[in-house]
């Protein structure tokens, strides 16, 4: 579903944020992307979402190059940044309707989807309020609903659990599994290692722009916990 091939990204100041990164996320995978602050996670995610142009390498989404067939790629993905700034002056329902219009979702389908996800995240009663009046967690929930309603094949999430209460986090994990059970794939970054350990079937650990470990979660961590492995790799590399 997502193939990152020898990806490198150098910023204007000469700093190489991502260096020769290669890995794949297959349909049904929940891929956790782990690394310390400034390791290159967000840069990689933004490149995969088509937000950043990269220096070298290729990114394919369902076989389409993000460089040359970006529209096809964008129809297949949903992306949520770490701090979702939304249109503060639209109401929640206006925003969801806008996203539905762009993806051409039918009337009945959008109504059912919005009902389903808004009820699950418990924000139905607030959908008529402007987004500017939402708390951080509510904005996060709204952004997640907007990502789920068009049934993306690939969900790209940057720190999706930040700002969510425990119940919402639990619900999100359920929806993530549901999407993957239906043939979708998820590529997300997180600092919460326990979540990654329990939720992801694949993980990648990035340090200073380079992938230092990648593969099936149980194979990568072996007998130790993910936290122990992460700290060991970060210290030793």
């Amino acid at each position, binding site marked *: 579903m997502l193939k990152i091939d020898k990806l490198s990204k150098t910023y*204007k100041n000469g700093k190489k944020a991502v260096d020769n990164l290669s890995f794949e996320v297959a349909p049904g995978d929940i891929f956790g992307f782990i690394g310390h602050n400034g390791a290159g996670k967000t840069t990689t995610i933004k490149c995969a*979402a*088509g*937000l950043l*142009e990269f220096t070298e390498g290729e990114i394919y989404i369902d076989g389409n190059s993000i460089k040359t067939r970006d*529209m096809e790629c*964008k*129809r297949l*993905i*949903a*992306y949520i*940044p770490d*701090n979702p*700034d*939304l*249109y503060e*002056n*639209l109401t*929640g*329902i*206006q925003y969801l*309707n*806008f*996203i*539905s*219009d*762009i*993806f*051409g979702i*039918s*009337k009945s389908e*959008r*109504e059912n989807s*919005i*009902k389903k996800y*808004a009820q699950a995240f418990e924000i*139905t*009663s*607030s*959908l*008529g*309020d*402007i987004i*500017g*009046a939402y708390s951080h967690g509510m904005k996060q929930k709204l952004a997640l609903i907007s990502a789920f309603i068009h049934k993306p094949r690939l969900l790209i999430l940057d720190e999706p659990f930040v700002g969510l209460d425990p119940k919402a986090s639990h619900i999100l994990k359920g929806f993530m599994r549901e999407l993957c059970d239906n043939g979708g794939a998820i590529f997300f970054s997180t600092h919460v290692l326990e979540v990654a350990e329990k939720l992801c079937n694949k993980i990648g650990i990035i340090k200073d722009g380079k992938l230092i470990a990648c593969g099936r979660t149980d194979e990568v961590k072996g007998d130790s916990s993910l936290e122990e492995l992460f700290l060991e790799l970060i210290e030793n590399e």
Partner: protein
Amino acid sequence: MNNTVLLIRVQLINSLGINKLLKGSTSKEKVKSGLFVGLMFFVAVMVFIQMSAYAWIISDFLEKYKAMDVLIIAGTALSLLVCLFMSIYKASGYLFTFKDFDLLMSLPLSVRAILAAKLFMLAVSNMGLSVLLGFPYFMVYGIRTSAGAIFYFLAVILLILSSLLPLTIGSLISLGLGKVSGKSKRTNLIMIVGSFLFLLLFMLGMLSINSLTAANLKDIAESIESLKMVYYPFGLITRTLAGLSLTALLLFCGISIAVFAVFVLLFSRSFKATNTKMQEKYKASDFKMTELRVQSIPRALLKKELSHYFSSYVYVLNTGFGAVMMLLAVVMFIINREKLPQMLSVFPVKISEAFLVTLTMAACVSLTCTTAPSISLEGRKLWIIRTLPLTAQDIFKGKICLNLVVAVPVLLLSVTVLAAVFRLSVWEYLLSVGLGCAYSIFIAVTGLIINLHFPKLEWTTQTAAVKQSASVMLAIFTGFLSVILPIVMLVLLKPSDIVVFQLLWLAVTVIVDFGAYRYLSGTGAALFRTL
């Protein structure tokens, strides 16, 4: 260092983007910043020259009637009105709903220190324009009366201090508007309508200054006395500058500082409560799912642009100005209908009433540019449209359509009314509407191109993206040039048939529209992808 001074220092560094200019930016960005500063300086010099020339022409009349004091009144009134308007317009962002409220209130700083720093920033932001517009009048008075250095020294002190009273009044009006609107769901609508009303009052004030200085010279003495009655400090300013009275100066300074100090003292007591109240957003939390409307992508994009536009007070106030000017122009045309043939005879080339209507409408349309800050306004929300399956052209069309929706209905209404008043032929009517529409497309496309070249995506308040960005200044300048050029061509070519000239003008504008749109679709789209 005193806390207030510390705060002012930090705010100046932050709002002027000094660090970005000196340390963070690349050489390309430095060139852009340099160009922006250069452009601002050029515009300031042009305004100063224009105001000085205007004041000089008025002084010729005033000398005959030995009423040179009127220059001081006119300069002060202009400066005060500008300061009052800017304060009403900006106070909300500086004093009541500023982004760093939580940060500052959590620090061990007194409310008075925070308020003083915010008021200082507001005063500084007003002062430039206030001095730029008022000082030429004082300067011409000084030259005409051969005043000494002490006169200029006093003039500068007075201009700086005179901003305190309108700043206080403006802040109070803004506070009142905010309190009224804060209780309603339609906060922005009330703020927009209220501010446009004050804007119209401001324009009427400006017009009355013009009529006072140029037209009704016989009534000058009476007018001055009535102005002094309405606004007591006028008398003190006149006595200080014309009579070099130290008592009047001290009295004026005393009144200004006292009123300002009382405002700071009283407002500091309710500062926290007022800000808390005004930062609250209307929440109903009673939404129930009903039927949703399905729309096409272009309609959805236009709807999103419209919702964003009309919910942003700063955006509407700055870019809807041209549409308000169109309506004001219609009123002025109707009032001065009888004098129009005489006014037209002043032009070096013979022009018709229809041409004047077309020119005025084109000028007003060129002031209505919603696109110049539209990319910048996406700010940190840019990820939404960048990750959606939309082409850059789709996004551009939505933004261009917004400009047309704001300008064209007002244009149609204005030209239709004026066509009825001046009995324009169908051809003249169509030419006026056609040129207005072509100008609206031109300014919308050009505004987008400029914004793509000079985006300002990192901002904390929308004011920074709408008012303090190079793209908006350049778009205003481009609009101004697009109106000046045909006038220059008209004077140079002296066409025998004004309708043919208008047709050529329309044809050239349409060709430029196509060229600009082609550039936007190609280079503009490429620029958009790199944002």
